[in-house]
């Protein structure tokens, strides 16, 4: 064993681990650059290395990228990688109130602990865990997705029905394109643009980041509340929080390791499941979703634990646990390293050197991550709006493009962003939509597969409800789903007369009209989906049709409630409508200009226009010059980075 530790600690490998973690952290922090892409870009570089060095570098980049996703989640309310979705729930509220530095430190420490637990599981328990993961069949994946959906209740910002309607909308969005299980073209309305479906990461960027940008330009208010004085890393505070959350961090790390070990599940689901469990057992204040550091602890420890966890099936079974693992598996094959049952016996030196390398990289993440996090926080807090908005908007555009080199994905991203902003103002929070979008495909595949199997063995009921693992997940789901209603149930049972909510004021007529229109649009979408699924074959139609019918029912319920109670959940639009509409229009305009003017020039133009849109302060000629030079400078540097280093074929 000692020789492997020495192997991992060779100066070259140490350097690679350090570089990998730093590069991964930076890449992961840019929305649109995912861990998968970070690793894929690196593959050709590893051809010339020895397999163990290559693995260490890729593992370090991977683990860094998963952690780096937390910065954008905390500071911009946009998950840098899909794994960090749940980090936004509490991270952004913390940053809003001036605790962004603390949130970043908590994220870093949690990621390190999660990463260590995952890597240790890989070291000590890989073969049995790989076997255990195989017990997860299609029906368990289906129920796991439903379990993830049970978070809707928690993420609905005060209006449960609107949350469920939003989730149905997200599920329907996930059905667009060529169906995975039946290969049929669905919901494209004859447009080739929608053939490939709504790309998850670009949708995430649009739904989370564009509303933040719109709200940023609308008013002159500061983006984040700046702390009174620089308080450093706030490390002691962060460590105290971790100790307070010790059960949370261990449970989430274990959840992350196990979900990571399930082939195909990945970091986003691990983060959501861990978050949901942490939230259910939380007794402290503030509540989850309102800036409780426990939410960050849960998500970040879980998603970094999936790194080690995901390598379990990758190395033991030769089946990738997470998407980046798929890339690494391919790179190993090119190196002539055959993963799978015999690797732990024949290739022990590679495997163990790699695992110790991964442990090393994870430990290095503490200083590297804290330092980069501190820098990111400082930059975003101090940057004037007129610089922050164009740079972030540019990142969303180039990041979205980079995912699959598609200009139409950028347009979809922006349109979804506007939809997300409007929906948010109407009380449909974005997170349930995202939940539906992410979990929709997994749920559908699991459902259709289980149905086919159940039908073949003539026992549908037993297939869906009779398997012990399924029963356990169903029980957990019910518990999580009804948990938010428990306090109210208790209240209703103990003191019948006092039902909260009924003392709320009736809304004014215009607000009721606005809600009516929103609900009718949602109903229209549901009916459209029903009509569109009429001509599909049963396999492709069953899931979207069910969702569309449920959505119709929920819309009717919401309409009924509106008529009876006249209560409206909405958030006021503040600031200038001109700026609000100008931002998405400018961004969409740029999409059309990219092929005409070339990417660099159009991007610089977009940057300038957005600088003006976001400008609220009075600037002198000198500050304008500095502002414009720095914005165009950052855009030029990033364009070069993407086209030259990351080999993205920009238009």
């Amino acid at each position, binding site marked *: 064993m000692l020789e492997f530790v020495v192997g991992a600690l060779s100066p070259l490998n140490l350097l690679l681990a350090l570089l990998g973690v730093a590069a991964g952290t930076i890449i992961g922090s840019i929305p649109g650059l995912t861990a998968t892409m970070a690793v894929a870009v690196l593959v050709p570089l590893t051809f010339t290395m020895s397999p163990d060095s290559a693995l260490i570098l890729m593992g370090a980049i991977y683990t860094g990228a998963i952690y780096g996703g937390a910065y954008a989640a905390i500071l911009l309310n946009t998950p840098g990688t899909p794994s960090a979705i749940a980090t936004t729930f509490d991270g952004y509220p913390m940053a809003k109130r001036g605790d962004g530095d603390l949130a970043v430190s908590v994220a870093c420490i949690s990621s390190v602990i999660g990463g260590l637990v995952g890597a240790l599981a890989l070291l000590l328990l890989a073969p049995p865990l790989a076997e255990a993961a195989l017990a997860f069949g299609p029906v368990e994946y289906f129920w796991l997705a439903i379990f993830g959906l049970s978070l809707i209740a928690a993420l609905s910002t005060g209006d449960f029905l609107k949350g469920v309607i939003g989730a149905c909308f997200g599920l329907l969005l996930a059905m667009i394109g060529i169906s*995975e299980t039946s*290969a049929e073209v669905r919901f494209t309305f004859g447009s080739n643009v929608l*053939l490939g479906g709504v790309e998850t990461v670009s949708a995430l960027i649009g739904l989370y980041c564009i509303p933040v940008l719109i709200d940023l330009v609308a008013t002159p208010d500061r983006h984040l509340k700046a702390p009174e004085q620089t308080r450093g890393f706030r490390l002691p505070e962060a460590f105290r929080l971790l100790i307070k959350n010790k059960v949370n961090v261990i449970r989430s790390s274990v959840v992350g390791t196990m979900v990571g070990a399930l082939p*195909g599940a990945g970091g986003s689901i691990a983060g959501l499941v861990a978050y949901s469990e942490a939230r259910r057992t939380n007794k402290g204040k503030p509540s989850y979703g309102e800036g409780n550091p426990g939410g960050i602890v849960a998500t970040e420890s879980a998603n970094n634990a999936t790194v080690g966890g995901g390598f379990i099936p990758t190395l033991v079974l030769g089946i990738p646990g997470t*998407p980046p693992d*798929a890339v690494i598996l391919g790179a190993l094959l*090119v190196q002539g390293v055959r993963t*799978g049952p015999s690797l732990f016996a024949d290739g022990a030196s590679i495997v163990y050197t790699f695992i110790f390398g991964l442990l090393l990289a994870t430990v290095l993440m503490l200083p590297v991550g804290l330092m980069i996090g501190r820098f990111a926080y400082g930059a975003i807090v101090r940057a004037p709006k007129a610089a922050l908005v164009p740079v972030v908007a540019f990142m969303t555009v180039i990041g979205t493009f980079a995912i699959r080199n598609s200009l139409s994905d950028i347009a979809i991203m922006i349109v979804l962003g506007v939809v997300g902003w409007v929906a948010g103002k109407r009380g449909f929070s974005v997170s349930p939509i995202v939940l539906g979008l992410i979990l929709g495909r997994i749920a559908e595949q699991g459902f259709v597969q289980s149905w086919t*199997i159940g039908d073949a063995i003539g026992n549908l009921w037993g297939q869906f409800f009779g398997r012990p693992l399924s029963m356990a997940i169903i029980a957990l789901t019910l518990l999580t789903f009804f948990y938010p209603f428990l306090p109210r149930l208790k209240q209703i049972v103990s003191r019948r007369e006092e039902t909260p909510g009924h003392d709320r004021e009736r809304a004014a007529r215009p607000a009721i009209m606005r809600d009516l229109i929103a609900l009718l649009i949602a109903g229209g979408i549901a009916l459209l989906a029903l009509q569109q699924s009429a001509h599909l074959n049963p396999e492709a139609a069953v899931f979207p049709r069910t969702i569309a019918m449920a959505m119709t029912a929920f819309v009717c319920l919401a309409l009924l409630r509106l008529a009876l109670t006249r209560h409206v959940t909405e958030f006021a639009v503040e600031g200038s409508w001109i700026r609000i509409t100008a931002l998405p229009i400018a961004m969409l305009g740029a999409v059309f200009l990219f092929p005409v003017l070339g990417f660099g020039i159009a991007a610089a133009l977009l940057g300038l226009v957005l600088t003006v849109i976001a400008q609220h302060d009075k600037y002198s000629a000198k500050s304008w010059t500095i502002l414009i030079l720095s914005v165009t400078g950052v855009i030029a540097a990033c364009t070069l980075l993407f086209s030259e280093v990351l080999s993205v074929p920009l238009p």
Partner: protein
Amino acid sequence: MKLTSTLMALTLTAFASVASAEDFPKGSVDYIIPFGPGGESDITARFQQPFFEKLFGEQMVVNYQPGGGGAVGWSQLNNMAGDGSVIMGINLPHIIIKPEQGDVGFKTDDLAAVYMFHYTPDAIVVTADSPYKTLQDLIDDAKANPKQVIFSGSGKGTANHLAQVQFDEMAGIESTYVSFKGTGASVTALLGNQVKAAWGYTTVGAAQGDKVRVLAVAMEDRHPAFPDVPTFRELGFDMVSGAYRGIAVPNSASEEVRTQVSDAIKAINADPEFQKQMLDGGFALVDVGYGADMDAFISEKADGYLNAARSAGIIE
């Protein structure tokens, strides 16, 4: 990376001064895989990558453009530069079946296929502890229990799925096919005993080693990596099938560019080291170059695939 290698290549050509304007490649080549990373298309592209650089002194940059089971990439191929700087992976039966299922933005004939370089032969795979010791065991069980022999496989309308349909017809059985997203998920279902067997590829047998037993492979001759596994033909079923992979260029590419790309891929296929890597991985090489050979190959394969897809009810 690209920048440094471009610089290096420039210096090299300056010194060598043998390069003429017609030489392929003129610079680095974008190799677009219309699928996500990690699948067979990606892995074989990665296998080719170092050999391309070794032979031609230029980088081959692998890019992904996933979506719609390849349709997103293929529908955009003809808008790209036809000067040889962009090549794209193509897959059979995908490019034949997809356009028949509806408007997917491209027709089979739109794609300028220049080389088919390998295929993953269809194979029936069971776990090592399966009661099916031979193909006959499986057929007997399927005859006694219609529909109850459940196969996993990668996707609908794919090589795996069409093989199941064809085999059911030939063997006179009725089995159940469950579609999974990619080979990895299909194999996971097999190893976890969620299904009784998998319609997979020879690559599954190579990757899983002792954990699985391959009952038969759909090749003309036995695969060198599995000398003990019979072909379907030996067992009385005339099946040679699988997923074929190759390269296409935008249709604006000149005859010269098409031939040059075809020759380049052919040269990689001729490298014994490359051949060994591919065979060890369970892949099987084919060499179908640009021109009449390719046309004949695709139209012959198309007939078989379309017939199977019709009997599977995937297309009308």
